[in-house]
């Protein structure tokens, strides 16, 4: 399973668990308009850390916070590369 599909699956699962209505998931979708609040995003990040062993947002050389879902996915793809 690709990193992208794992992330999309997690986002969908956590939105459902937290009772959040998700916007259609596209690369251009701003994360804060996705329907996920900060807590949901924190849960997604913790889940991905457990599942992929990657936590690019906590890394020391993290240069910018992701704005769109595409940015978010790219952070993980780059961290895995």
């Amino acid at each position: 399973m690709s990193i992208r599909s794992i992330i999309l699956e997690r986002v969908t699962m956590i939105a459902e668990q937290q009772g959040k209505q998700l916007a259609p998931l596209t690369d251009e979708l701003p994360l804060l308009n996705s329907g996920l609040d900060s807590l949901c995003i924190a849960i997604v990040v913790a889940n991905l850390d457990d599942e992929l062993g990657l936590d690019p947002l906590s890394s020391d050389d993290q240069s910018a916070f992701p704005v769109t879902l595409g940015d978010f996915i790219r952070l993980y793809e780059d961290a895995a590369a």
Partner: protein
Amino acid sequence: MGAPLEALRGRSVMISTERQLTAALALCELDGIARRMLLCTPDMSPTHVSSAITDAEIDTIVTDGGGPAKNVAHDTSLIFVGDRLKPCEGTPDRSVDTEWLLLTSGTTGRPKLAVHTLASLVGPLNDGLVVQDAPVWSTFYDIRRYGGLQILLRAFVGGGSMVLSSAGEPVADFLSRAGANRVTHISGTPSHWRRTLMSAATSRMNPRYVRLSGEACDQAILDNLRQAYPDANVAHAFASTEAGVAFDVRDGQAGFPASLIGQIGKDVSIRVEDGSLRIRSSRVADRVIGNHGRALSDAEGYVDTGDIVELRGDRYYFAGRREGVINVGGLKVHPETIEAVINQHPAVHMSRVSGRSSPITGAIAVAEVVINPSAAACGVSFAAIRNEILGLCRGRLAPHEIPVTIREISSLEIAASGKLVRRHA
């Protein structure tokens, strides 16, 4: 409806409002008139409202018809206000040294109320913050919390105007309003600021002073804010409702220089004792109601913030909370509250909740549980038990209190004191 201000002289007043603005106006009008004012936070539970009414000997509730005291049964008089109380004839006598009662954040059981006065809240700040003419203040905090009230009072005392944030307002909309109103000084928690940076709307405002408080501040958020607001001073403050604002750090680095230990300016001293940061200043609360008789400060006047700090090189860094309180995006979570819910599940022998660091909310709550031998023997899967535990938590806890992960472990360490061994969150 309204009520003459004079009728509230010497009263112990609870301020319960739907709108922040009404609360701000009530505070202004009642200071110097009321014996005490208890400011309800917007998310205060009905149980907390009831116990606060008793503990603070509240005899009057001032309300705009909403707020947390709405629908709470009480036998105090209720005074409705619109935008303001009816002014007195002439200039009212404001000689009462009104107590300002603020809820300390992260309270379990009965709420604890920090007793301040206007003097301790605005106490000589001496922090060298350069405020030019006509500053425009703003804050991501609700002004009914200590962090937000600080900014409101700076605006009241120091002059200028203020833009209030509003719960539920999209970040980008708030930033647009802040920009349109030319906000110059703005504060929030690191979690508020992370949301701002993720909003793609950071450039809609151009503040000159950006302040972080209420949570530990890491290097990434400081670096990102400096990049987003190159013209702004970025400062992170050490403050708590009980200890007041102690000091702020403006060198762009996380933690604080060890050279600050001792006297800071004229009014503040800090020291580290038993690993935690202690503060003595004129901004410390006078006392805390509901603190089980424990004194707020030691014999020398130092308040233990409960923040564990670690010396690395020539700086101290935040390393967690003494009593294991977890700070989830500025909302404090007591592990014991969550453990009490988890432990209600019949298959659970014991549990431990701790904080796990998060680049989004600073921390999140995670749980470890030990399953009863008898339940384990029945062959029920842990996955099924975990789902039931989550169900219990969802029914009884706020979203930020629900453990993000629940892990099964074979045993939990108990200290010689008989208490669960906790790591610093």
